[in-house]
C-alpha cells in the first residue's frame, strides 16, 4: 500500500536530523493532534485542546529552542547549513496534522531568524531572549508584527514601497526606543505572545531603508496591549488579534541590527515565510492524500472501490501529481535557502522573488486540490469527519497572507521581466 512517504523528497540533501526528528514529530501529530483536531474550531479562543499539544512539541521536546546557540540552551540549528531544509520538514510534518499549528510553530522562529541565524547572529539579543524559550517546558510564542490596519501587503512590498506606509513609529529617547502603533493579525498574537518582533519606522513616511526598524518587544512590557483572538474561516490553532503599542519603551539594543540591515534581513524573513508557506500547504496536502486514499478505497460505486472508476482515477492522478510537484519544489526551495554559496543570499532579490513564485503556485494548486478532493467526497466533503474541508478552510489563508498572490505576481514579474514600475 502506498503512503505519503512515496511522494518524492530529494534524498541527497535532507538534513542530518531528518529521520529522527521526522519520527518524533509524526508520532506527536498522530497521537497529540490528529485525534483532537476536529474540535479545534470551537477551541479557537481558549486553546484548551491545542495548548497541551503545543506544550509537548515546543516545550517538552524542545522545538522552540532549535535556532538558539547550543551554549545558550538551544540546538544550534541557526548556525548549521541545513536549517531551512530541516525547518521545511518540521513545518510539513506539523501541518500534516494541522497547518494552523504549523504556522504557529514556524512563527515562533520567524522573528528569531533575524538574530539566531548565520551570518547575522546577534549574540547579545540571543542571550537576552534565550531564557524565554530555552528554560521552560511550556510552549512560548514569538510573533512577527508587520500588518497594520491600513494594509499588510504594502509593508511586505519592500522593493517598491520601502517602508513608507508603516505607521508604527520608533523614536530613540536616550538609550530606549519608544514605540507607538497598532498592529493586527500576527500569528501567535491574540493574547499568547511572549516576544514580539515589531516592524517600525524611525521616520514616518520615509522610504529610506535606514529608517526601517525591526525591534523586539517582550509582550509584558508596559504599554503593550493584546486584544482577543479573531474568529476566522479556519486555522483555529493560530491566534490572531490586535496589538497596541502605547509609549512602549525597550532598550536601544533591542533593534535587531540597525539602519539598512534590518530591512535587508527582513527580506530574508519574507523569503523564509514564503518557503514555509509551501511546507504548510504541502504538509496539509499529504494528509488530504491520506484521507482521500481511505475514502476512495472504502467507498464503493457500481460494486467497485470509487477509485477504480476511470474518471475518478483521472482526478486522483491530478491530485497526486500536484502533491508530488509541490513537495519537490518545496524541498528544492528550502535547499536553495541553505546553499547561499550557490544561490546567493537569502535576502537577495532572486530568492525573495522565487520563493514568492513557489508560494503562490503552491497555494493556487493546493486550493484546487483540496476543492477537488472535497467534491469527490460528495456530501461528506463538507463534513468535519473527513478532515479535508478543514485543510481547505485552513489553506485559504496561506494563499492570502504575505501580501497575497498579486504582490507575488508583481515581484515575480519584476524579477523575471525587469519591470521598473510594477
Amino acid at each position, binding site marked *: 500500500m502506498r503512503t505519503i512517504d512515496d511522494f518524492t523528497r530529494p534524498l541527497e540533501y535532507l538534513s542530518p536530523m531528518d529521520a529522527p526528528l521526522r519520527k518524533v514529530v509524526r508520532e506527536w501529530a498522530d497521537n497529540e493532534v490528529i485525534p483532537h483536531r*476536529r474540535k479545534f*474550531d470551537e477551541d479557537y479562543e481558549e486553546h484548551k485542546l491545542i495548548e497541551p499539544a503545543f506544550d509537548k512539541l515546543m516545550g517538552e521536546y524542545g522545538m522552540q529552542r532549535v535556532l538558539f546557540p547550543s551554549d545558550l540552551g538551544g540546538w544550534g540549528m541557526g548556525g548549521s547549513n541545513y536549517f531551512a531544509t530541516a525547518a521545511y520538514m518540521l513545518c510539513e510534518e506539523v501541518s500534516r496534522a494541522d497547518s494552523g499549528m504549523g504556522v504557529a510553530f514556524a512563527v515562533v522562529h520567524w522573528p528569531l531568524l533575524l538574530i539566531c541565524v548565520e551570518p547575522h547572529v546577534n549574540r547579545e539579543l540571543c542571550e537576552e531572549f534565550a531564557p524565554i524559550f530555552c528554560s521552560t517546558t511550556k510552549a512560548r510564542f514569538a510573533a512577527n508584527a508587520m*500588518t497594520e490596519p*491600513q*494594509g*499588510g*501587503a*504594502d509593508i511586505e*512590498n519592500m522593493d*517598491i*514601497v520601502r517602508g*513608507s*506606509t508603516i505607521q508604527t513609529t520608533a523614536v530613540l529617547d536616550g538609550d530606549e526606543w519608544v514605540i507607538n502603533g497598532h498592529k*493586527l*493579525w500576527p500569528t501567535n498574537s491574540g493574547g499568547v505572545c511572549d516576544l514580539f518582533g515589531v516592524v517600525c519606522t524611525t521616520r514616518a513616511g520615509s522610504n529610506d531603508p535606514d529608517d526601517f526598524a525591526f525591534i523586539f518587544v517582550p509582550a509584558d512590557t508596559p504599554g503593550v496591549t493584546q486584544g482577543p483572538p*479573531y*474568529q*476566522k*474561516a*479556519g486555522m483555529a490553532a493560530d491566534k*490572531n488579534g490586535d496589538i497596541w503599542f502605547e509609549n512602549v519603551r525597550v532598550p536601544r539594543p533591542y533593534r535587531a541590527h540597525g539602519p539598512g540591515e534590518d530591512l535587508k534581513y527582513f527580506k530574508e524573513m519574507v523569503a523564509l515565510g514564503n518557503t514555509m508557506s509551501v511546507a504548510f500547504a504541502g504538509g496539509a496536502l499529504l494528509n488530504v492524500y491520506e484521507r482521500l486514499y481511505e475514502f476512495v478505497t472504502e*467507498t464503493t*460505486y*457500481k460494486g467497485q472501490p*470509487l477509485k477504480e*472508476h*476511470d*474518471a*475518478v482515477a*483521472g*482526478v486522483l492522478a491530478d491530485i497526486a501529481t500536484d502533491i508530488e510537484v509541490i513537495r519537490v519544489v518545496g524541498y528544492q526551495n528550502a535547499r536553495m535557502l541553505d546553499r547561499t554559496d550557490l544561490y546567493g543570499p537569502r535576502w537577495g532579490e532572486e530568492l525573495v522573488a522565487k520563493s514568492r513564485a513557489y508560494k503562490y503556485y503552491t497555494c493556487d494548486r493546493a*486550493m484546487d486540490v483540496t*476543492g477537488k478532493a*472535497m*467534491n*469527490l*467526497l*460528495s*456530501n*461528506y*466533503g*463538507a*463534513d*468535519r*469527519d473527513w478532515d479535508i*474541508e478543514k485543510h*481547505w*478552510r485552513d489553506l*485559504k*489563508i496561506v*494563499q*492570502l*497572507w504575505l501580501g*497575497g*498572490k*498579486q504582490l507575488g*505576481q*508583481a515581484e515575480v514579474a519584476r524579477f523575471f521581466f525587469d519591470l521598473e514600475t*510594477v
Partner: protein
Amino acid sequence: MSEHEIFPCMYEWLTDMDVSLAGNLRRWADNEVMARRLELKESYEQLLEPAMRQLFLEIGLQRLLWPEKYGGDGHNSPKAAVTMVAALEQVSRGDTSIALLLSSMWALQSCMAMEGKENHEACEAFAELFGSQDTLAITSLVLPLFRDEPQARAKLAKGAWSVEAKSARPLASGADAAVFGVLCSGAGSDIPGDEVCVIALPAAAKGIKRGKPFLKTGMAADRNAPVSFDKAKAPEGLCVARGLEACRGMLSWLYLGVAASTVGALFAAYEILKEWGDNRVIKGKGQTFKNNPLTSSVMAEVAREISVSRMLTCDLGRVLSEPGIYGPAGEEGNFVLAEMVANTVTLSAEKAIGGAMEMMASAGYATEWNLERYWRDTKTLQVCLGPYELAKMDYARYFYQSEAR
C-alpha cells in the same frame, strides 16, 4: 438600480408578484440577517431561528408553492420555477443555508403538489405541515451520494411502503426535519434505472432514527445528522415520484434551487467586494483596488462569473417553468441541463468568492467581514451535487449516448 440588478436576467419572465416578493425578501435579508449579524457575530446561529420563522411562516414561503386547497397560496404551477429563482437569490444573499432549506422543501413540494398532477393523498397528509402558521416545514432530502446509487431501499407490501437505510447522509437538516424526502431504489420497474422512487416520510413515522448532529464546513441554519430508516412505513400514496423521470424532476427543481441560492451568495460577495474595491487603497500605488489594473482584473473576473451564473440560472428557471415548450422537468435533457447549470454555477462561485477573498486578504478570511461565510456555504452547495466526475457521465450519456457509468 440596486447593486445586484446590474447583473442582467430576463426581467420579462418575472411576474409582478415575483418582483414584489423579491423586494420583500431583499428587505428581510437586509433587516433580519445582514443588519443583525454584526451585533450577533459571536453567535450567528441565534439570529437564524427568528429569521427563519419570519421567512417560512410570516412571509409564508412554506405556503407559497403549496396548493390553495391544502392551505397554501396556490402558486403550485411550473411558473413557480421563476418565482423560486427570484426568491432564493434574495434569501441566499442574506443567508445561503436558509436558501438550501427552502430549495429542499420546494423540490419535494414540486413533486407532490404540481397543478394538474397533485398527489392528493400526499397533499392531504402534509397539508397541516406546509399550510402551518406556526410549525417550520423543515425538509430533509435523502438522495444518492454517488449519482444513481440511492442510499435507501423501499419495498411495497400490503399497500404500504417500507423504507430501509442505515446511517444515511441527508443533504441537509437530518436533525431538524419535519418531513423526509427519501429517494429509494426498489420501486419495482423492469426498466433498468427506472426502479427508483421518492417517498415522503413524516418525521414522526415509526422506524426513523436520527444520529448525533455533525460538524461541517458551513450552512449554519442546517443541523444535519445521519438518519437510519428501519422499516419506516408510509402509506402507498406517499410515494411522490415513481420512476426515473419523476425522480429527476425533483432533482431538476433542487438543482435550480442550488443554482439560484449560489447566485444569491454571489450577490452578497459582490457587494462586500465592491465596498472594499471602492475604499481600500493600495498605498504603494496610491490607487484604490478598483483602479489598479492587477486587482481590478481579478474583480472583473468575479463580476463575469456572477453575471454569467445569473443568466444561466434564470434560463434554467424559464426552461422548468415552461414544460409546454421544453418538456417536463425530469426529461433527460432538462435534467442534464439543470445538473450542468448547477455544477457550472457552483464551480464559478468557488472561483469568484475565492478571488474576492484574495482581494480582501485577512479581512476576507475574518468572520467579521462575512465574505468567508458565503465561501464556505457555496462550496457546500457544490458538494451537495455529488462528485462532478460522476455528473459528467450523465452529460456524456445524453450528448454522446455514452454507456460509461
